[in-house]
């Protein structure tokens, strides 16, 4: 068993909608181990993306804790949480979230803005990362000049260029065709083999089963099932 890297306890995210309360995430206890490939699956509105945002420190829980490598994430200052995002994690989104007016190279380089990497080194690392993902010819292309698969690979390059410990991917193949989905799936699998922890949110159970070590199924903000790939099932 690898080292426990992220642990949540009674994690809740409740929203006020008028007079009623929406329980997007409600009392989730979760452990993520180093180098694990974890998939969180569930239907729309099940709370899977909300969990991912809280694990990344983008969203703040209503209750409960998130410990990263033993440190309570939400006891950190906002600046420390920002540093955590800059140094420890990479994020990939369904809609790629590339800045449209910047080139592929600059979009990747931006990920290194916040860790004091000198400009020359930023460019070198970003170029090398894009080339490793087969985008060497697309460095100066803007997102609008790239296909969906290429855009997502730029997004992955941006997430990986800073050598994160964990890669959070929110529906990374949601906007891709089968061919590009396969490419991204393979890419993530390869990264995981290199030791990067991957937490992926998807509604595509077959994709999760094919790639993840462990699958967590959520419904109405709660974990309803934990599936260990190639092994036993268990309930939360």
């Amino acid at each position, binding site marked *: 068993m690898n080292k426990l890297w992220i642990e949540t306890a009674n994690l809740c995210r409740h929203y006020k909608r008028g007079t009623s309360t929406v329980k997007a995430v409600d009392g989730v206890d979760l452990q993520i181990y180093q180098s694990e490939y974890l998939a969180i699956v569930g239907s729309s509105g099940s709370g899977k993306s909300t969990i991912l*945002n809280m694990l*990344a420190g*983008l*969203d703040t829980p209503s209750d409960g804790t998130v410990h990263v490598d033993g440190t309570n994430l939400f006891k950190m200052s*906002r*600046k420390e949480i*920002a*540093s955590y*995002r*800059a*140094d420890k994690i990479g*994020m990939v*989104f369904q809609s790629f*979230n*590339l*800045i449209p*007016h910047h080139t592929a190279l600059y979009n990747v380089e*931006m*990920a290194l*803005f*916040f*860790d*004091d990497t000198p*400009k020359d080194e930023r460019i070198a690392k970003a170029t090398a990362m894009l080339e490793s993902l087969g985008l060497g010819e697309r460095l100066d292309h803007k997102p609008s000049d790239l296909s969906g698969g290429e855009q997502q690979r730029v997004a992955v390059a*941006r997430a990986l260029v800073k050598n994160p410990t964990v890669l959070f991917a929110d529906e990374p193949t949601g906007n891709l065709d089968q061919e590009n989905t396969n490419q991204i799936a393979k890419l993530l699998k390869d990264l995981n083999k290199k030791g990067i922890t991957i937490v992926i949110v998807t509604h595509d159970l077959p994709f999760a089963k094919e790639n993840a070590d462990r699958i967590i199924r959520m419904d109405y903000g709660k974990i309803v099932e934990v599936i260990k790939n190639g092994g036993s099932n268990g309930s939360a």
Partner: protein
Amino acid sequence: MDLRDMLHISIGNLWRMKLRTFLTASGVVIAIAAFVAMLSFGAGMQENVAEQFNKLGLFNTMIVYEKRTESDNERRHRNQDDEENIEEDSTSVNDSLVVVDMIIKPLDNEALKLLSKIRGVSLAYPFESFAISVTIDDSTYETDAQALPLDAYKTKLYSELSYGEHLKSDSSKEILLTDQFIKDFNIEFPDSLIGRQLIISAKASSVDSGLYAIVKSDSFNIIDKVKELKFDSLLNKDYVSTVLKTEANDAIGRFVDGYMNRNEIVSDTLIIVGILDNGTGRRTSSKQILIPMSIAEKFNSKGAGRGMMDMFSMVSGGQIDLFNQGSESKSFSKITLNIEQGFLHKNIADSVKALGYRPFSYAQEFEEIQQIFLYFDMGLGLIGLIALITASLGIVNTMVMSIIERKREIGILKSLGADETYIKFLFLTESGMIGTIGASAGIVFGWLISRLGSFIVRSFMEKEGVDAIELFTMPIWLVLTAFAIGLTVALAAGYFPASKAAKVDPVEALRSD
């Protein structure tokens, strides 16, 4: 990421929105240009005044006047009246006419000696002038003459000559004309006057002639007066009083006639040695011709150019010696002090006051003028600032729009590790860039406006035959102030939107279109 990266990103963002950036910066440009042009005018005016003061040596010149003070008797009398008024009735009105008795401490040769001994005074000279007729060839001009000691020509006030040279000594038979004289009398070739002779002359009035007229006049015969007396009424007090009043009035009338109508002419022939540049009237207090002290004393001793007011002044000051009207009894309307560099005018003014005279310092006057200029500049600056505040609203609008449009970008940056400080700094840099561009261009435009204004004013002045002066100036403090204000206002305008941007919820931002 360093400042260079931040500037690069900001410039890129502003460049993408060229039109909006241009329009927003235009507001700042106009406001700063107005600010610079207006304050450039204020600074130009101030510099002109300072230059004139400096050119004329007024910063080291002090004028001393007689000080009129209330006599002790009068002060006692007034105090008594005040006390009585309080005792009688607080509402009563004292309608008696208070005749204020003034004593004048004369500005005479004794005063000149005392003033010249004040520490820091390098030169003290009196202002002596009188009406005079100047005859050159067949032309006669009525003007004013002024006498100055030779040392006074070394001061800035009287040192510049248009032609010729200065007087050689205080007793030379020489004369200096002034540019003002040349201009007033339309003399075409002033340089041709150098070396030529002229005659100065003045009517003389003396106390002698007045006294003489009391006892010897066509309208007065002592035998007739004796005959007119009613000897049997000489013991009548009223009769005696009436006769004395009538005779006293007649005697005063005859004295005045004799004083004013003596009609003796004093004259002298002098050689024109130079023409003083008094800048068409810029030299304060300089008369149209300048003569040596000895010539002035000669004219003065004979009562040249003296009027009734001079006589009354001398009598009331107790300076007149009926039997000896020599230079010892003479008083001056003012005395000019030349002050050495490094001495405080205030200390010298205090010494002058201690001697019982009233000082007037141009340097102290300049401080008051500067105060007025400060208010003037503040008024002009305020107008510019109002324009700048209006422009700042444009910056606020642009930045708020930018945040709305770039909300997703803010979310992406936050997901990559940007903290609130970074986001705030990014937007502040952009508003600062707008301020920098606007202020820089505004300074250039303001300078161009000031040049245009200067060209128009100078053309107008030259057309009117006035010495053209530079009314606009752009000192470095104005450039730096304008830039600092432009940048500060832009940063202040960008602060609220930048703070708003820093607080954008990244989850919501990443979901936005």
